[in-house]
Each structure stands twice: as C-alpha cells, then as structure tokens.
C-alpha cells in the first residue's frame, strides 16, 4: 500500500477525478494484454506511477491528464512484457493478430478520442508512423465488423 499522499486535496483529486479515467485506462491496457488480470495490474501500475506527481497533474486539463495516464499505461505495458491472452470474445479475437502499436493507435484515436499527434506522443513515435498504425488498425476494424 502506497501511503505517500498526505494532502487531502490531492487525495480527493485522485479518488474523485483521476479515478474517473480508470475504466478507460483499463480498456486500453486490456486491448494490449488481452488478459483481465494483467490489465488490472497494469492499471494499478499506471496509477502508482503518477502518485508522486499528483500536484502537477491536478493543475492540468482533462486531456493532458488523460494523455499522461495513457503514457504511463503504455510504459507499464512495455515494462510488463508479454502477457498471455486468455480472452475468447469476438473483440479479443479481432485484436489478437494486430501488433500492440496498432491496437494502441486504434484505441487511442478511435476510442479515447486523442488526435493522431497526441496518440503519437503517447506511443513515443512520429505522427507519420502513428498514421500508419491507425491505417492498419482501421482496415482490420472495417474487415472485422
């Protein structure tokens, strides 16, 4: 249990505002891990990673907070390494053959509502490469549907 936060306003910010993004982060990391248990762990890792920077986050806007959490989540996915997919839903089957970057691009832009440039910022790639990931993901998506 990390109990490093003492400031009540930061605690309130964490529990009332930051936690509102938890489901979005969970869906993002699930799409990358295709494993619910790992996804849950990745969410916890994501939130732990921002605990020391809550004061700074609290001063930022909603989109910036979302981008920061997604960046941390992406870093956590990479840190966790390969997960063992254990989901059998149609949606999981659609995602499985796609590269993680392609899944991430699809989720960041067409689910989380980021722009291609913001998505590139999250993945740490160029906007051009981001567009390629998006193109691949969207082509697969239209074929899945």
């Amino acid at each position, binding site marked *: *249990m*990390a*109990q490093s*936060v003492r400031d009540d306003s*930061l*605690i309130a910010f*964490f*529990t009332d505002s930051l*936690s509102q993004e*938890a*489901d979005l982060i*969970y*869906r993002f990391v*699930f*799409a990358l891990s295709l494993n*619910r248990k790992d*996804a*849950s762990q990745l*969410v*916890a890792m994501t*939130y*732990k990673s921002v*605990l020391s920077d809550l004061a700074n986050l609290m001063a930022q806007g909603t989109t910036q907070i979302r981008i920061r959490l997604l960046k941390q989540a992406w870093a956590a996915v990479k840190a966790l390494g390969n997960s063992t997919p254990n989901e059998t*839903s*149609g*949606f999981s089957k659609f995602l499985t053959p796609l590269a993680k*970057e392609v899944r991430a691009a*699809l*989720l960041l*832009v*067409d*689910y989380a509502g980021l722009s*291609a440039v913001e998505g590139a910022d999250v*993945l*740490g*790639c*160029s*906007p*051009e*490469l981001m*567009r*390629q990931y*998006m*193109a*691949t993901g*969207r*082509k697969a*998506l*239209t074929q*899945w*549907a």
Partner: protein
Amino acid sequence: MAQKPTELTGEQLVFAYLAEYLDDDLPSSIRESYIDSLKKVDPKETLPEQFKDARGRMQLALQDFALNEQQIRGLHVLVEDDATRAAKEAVESERMERSETWGQVGRWFGYVAVFGLIAGVMFWYFRPPEKAKFNALETLVYEALSMEEDPELKLDLPSSDFKEIRDFVANYPGLDFAPIDMSYPPASWNVMGGSVLDYDVAKIITVQFSHATHAEEKLFLFMFKGHLSQLPKAEKADFEGFEYQTYSSEQINVIAWQGKPDTVALLIGHRNAQDLAKAAKALN
C-alpha cells in the same frame, strides 16, 4: 520505437484519415489526393459508413470491460486506506445529515410561511365587511330631521354659492376619505351651506339644499368613510346607470350610493327615491 516513418500509400492515406474525412475536416494539403485515393480504394463509396459502424461496434464492445468495485477500491487504497476513507465518509455523511435536517427545518419554515401568507390573503379577501363605526342610517336621518327643524343650527358655512360649498367640501382638512366631486347642483335645488359633523368615530360632511320654489323643503347630502355593505341591506335600484339603494320611513326617504371607493353618500329628503336619485346623479 525504432521504426522510421515512411510515406503513406494511397490505401493507408484513406484509412489513416477516414475520421477526418467523415468529419469534413481533411487538411487542405491532402484533400485532393485523399479523394482520388478513396475513389480507387472504395469505388462503391461504402467505406466511410462501414468504418463509422465498425468504430461504433468497437466502442460498444469495450464497454464490456470495466473495473469492478474491489479493483476501484484497490486504486483508492493507493492514496488512502479503507479505515481513513470510512472515517471521512462517516464525517461527510453526518455533515450531510445535519445539512439535510436544517434543510428540512428550513423547508418547513418555508411551508409555514407560504401557508400563512395564503391564509392571510384568503382572510383579507374573504373577511367579513368591516362594521360601521356608527349607525349611519339612523344617526344621519336624525341629523337630517334635526337640521330640517332648524336649518341654520348646524351649518358651518352658510352659503348659496354652490362652487363655494363644493370647494369647502373638497378642501376640508383632515378628512380620511375623498368626498364626491359634486359636479353639478341638483336641478331645482339651491344650496344653503355645508358642515362637517365631527363625531368621535367619524367625520361626516353634510351639504344642505332647499327647493327653488318650496324653500321649506330640504334635501340633505351626507358623505362619510365607508362602504355600502356596512349599511343595512336594501333594495337596489338604477337611475340611468346611477346605482343606489333606498331606505324609507314614514318621515323621510333615503338613498345611498358608493360615491367613491371609500366614500358612502346619502341623500335624504321627502321626495321619492327616483327624484332623490336624479339629484344624486347630478351631484355625483
């Protein structure tokens, strides 16, 4: 990420900018090439709608994945343990309860105030008519008969000048009601003078007239603060639009009307009610 960005192929361009195309938000620098590529990739022009549907399906599918309560609590524990949080929630709950209690008290005060206001308005609206401060009919008939016996006795301002009497009435100081306008003198009647009878409970203006040819016949106009409803119920009548009510006795006849909103006027004489009404209409 070690990949080096490469230029998008025609098909990649189409998919990479599909959302912008749907939102009519394509960058102008690629608009032309995008439309060309779209025609080649999607000659049937079904792709944009197909993508829109697929994106909706994906967003819907993602709704199936959400943290459960325990997982969310696990996140909250990162900053605050359960016991502390429970204690805070208890304090907050108590504060809310107290606030709710005061809110209820306030609401009840509000209800009582509104009810009181409604009751007050209803009482004011439906209240019984205020009782007359004096028995106007009996008293003023007596005054009329008394003045008839001795016309000069109670005249503060004896005058045969109608205008002078009208001014006297209109400008008499300290009245708590507005006298009638006394527009015209009644035909065949001469004014004799005016007085103010100052009873403890009310001031009464009186104007005395005598008949032009039978000077011994008198007519008495009285005005005082009040409302017709304070007089005994009587037969109502109408003379050319002039509404009044009548009282009669063996000795004398009386007509009464509402001269002004707060002013009752009586005309007392030996003529019949219609003649009295005719005279009253001229005065009113």
